[in-house]
């Protein structure tokens, strides 16, 4: 990052501005810059390039804290089945992410079942069925308007009986402020447990990279309704930098597991802290 040649208040203002414009939010930006000032003072740093190295370090540590080694999402424990539910607000990329993830698992030889748990939105079942076909995996589907909890129960129960390796559950987009829809999500969580007591093994909140501070409210409410195990940050191939993940990690301890980087089936990656923080400043 091109910044001034001296460590002064203006440098810290410029760095704080970068954090703000990348959606870190004011609370996180202030916290990070305060830590930075403290460490720079303690170590008597006078080179602004080194200040930036310290900043990168602070931000990486926020993401690394309590999870020093990033596990490969596509090498989960060998449970039969390993159940992953995808939840989130409308239009964030849940269904597309499931298609990509299914493909990745299938390529590594896993027996995958997609459960078409969005029975509400127009052509939602058709959409996820096309992804299942592209990924070469099976799908559990119903007619539209059927209770999503019953399709999801059938899907997980069938996966247990037929010894699938991976179950990917698609759910309808929903606003976290709608109590009825969040209650529906809790019912879905309960029926998954009925079919498979240890499941869901992962509950992934799918968040659009372009989202601003509302992502925090989303994470908080979804985590309160059903325990989240991670985030999938989608549409990272745009120009948004996804700075909201720092607040979500710091305050809710929810890590990013997946990065969506396009609309094609291959466009999914494991989240990589060092790469992400580097990209943040380019």
């Amino acid at each position, binding site marked *: 990052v091109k910044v001034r040649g001296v460590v002064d208040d203006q440098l810290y203002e410029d760095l704080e501005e970068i954090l703000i414009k990348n959606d870190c939010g004011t609370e996180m930006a202030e916290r990070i810059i305060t830590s930075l000032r403290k460490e720079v003072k303690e170590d008597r740093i006078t080179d602004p390039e080194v200040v930036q190295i310290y900043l990168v370090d602070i931000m990486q540590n926020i993401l690394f804290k309590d999870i020093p080694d990033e596990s490969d999402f596509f090498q989960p424990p060998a449970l039969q089945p390993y159940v992953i539910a995808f939840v989130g607000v409308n239009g964030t990329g849940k269904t597309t992410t499931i298609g990509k993830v299914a493909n990745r698992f299938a390529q590594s030889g896993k027996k995958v079942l997609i459960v078409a748990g969005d029975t509400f939105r*127009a052509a939602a079942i058709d959409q996820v069925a*096309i992804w299942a076909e592209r990924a070469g995996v099976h799908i559990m589907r119903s007619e539209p308007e059927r209770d999503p909890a019953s399709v999801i129960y059938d899907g997980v129960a069938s996966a247990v009986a037929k010894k699938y390796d991976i179950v990917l559950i698609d759910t309808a987009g929903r606003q976290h402020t709608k109590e009825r829809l969040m209650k529906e999500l809790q019912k879905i969580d309960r029926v998954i447990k009925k079919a498979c007591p240890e499941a869901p093994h992962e509950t992934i909140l799918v968040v659009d990279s372009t*989202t601003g501070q509302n992502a925090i409210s989303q994470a908080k409410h979804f985590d309160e309704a059903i325990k989240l195990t991670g985030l999938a940050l989608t549409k990272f191939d745009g120009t948004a930098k996804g700075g909201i993940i720092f607040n979500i990690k710091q305050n809710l301890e929810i890590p990013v597991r997946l990065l969506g980087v396009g609309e094609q089936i291959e466009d999914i990656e494991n989240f990589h802290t060092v790469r992400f923080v580097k990209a943040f400043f380019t």
Partner: protein
Amino acid sequence: SLSERLDSIFRNLKGSGYLTEQNIKDSIREIRLALLEADVNFKIVKNFIAEVEKRAIGAEVMKSLSPGQQIVKIVHEQLIALMDTEGFEMKVYNNKLTKIMMVGLQGSGKTTACAKLAAMYRKKGIKPMMVACDVYRPAAIEQLKVLGRQIDIPVVTEDTKDVVTIAESALKQAYSAFTNLLIFDTAGRLHIDADMMDEVARLKTHVKPDYIFFVADSMTGQDAVTVASEFYKKLEFDAVILTKMDGDARGGAALSIKAVTGRPLAYVGTGEKIPDLEVFYADRMASRILG
């Protein structure tokens, strides 16, 4: 809320009847925080605050208001002024064809907005038709057809990957069916995807729409300015539809988009169902942004 936070700053202040420069300096930080937390773009916030300062210095504090409330009133009024729709109203007639196009990023709510707008205008006695020009997303065409069936409005589809071919067919069908509102749904696309931006520019050239709506998600953060200005540079869209306002996003993107493109915010999406589309009101948006 902002007014509570400002009141706590002014708690020990003896009212002077006028806002002093110090009153305003003390409030600036709180106003800036409130707007950034609401996702207003940081550059827009800078300009906005400079304007507030000009207007606030020496302003008379009304007897019924505390200095904090007075400052909030100035901020509120300025937000309203900036987001004023200037009476934008889509002109649709019973005896000619009005063509509109929906554009925007992936997942913003374009397809749903097509159906909502079609249903809204059919209630006004207009004869709408929708056109499925998203040839990429799995089941996108089916999605528009399902919505069309739900509201009993015809949907034009063609078995081709060329959106201009679909558009030509739609125009023919619209004229022969005496349609008076033709609504083009397009694929979600990135502002930095040159080929996709060229596609929608080509579609505009062939269709010559009367209105292009930029459909934006109300939860968009700082990136709203970059996205909106790129779409505006390429298409000079006419108005904005802000979706998913039934959530709790503060919606600062609304101010950012208006500030950087000058185009009016026309409609607001307030839910997933067909009736969930309302006319935009600047005063409601201003209150929401201020939390």
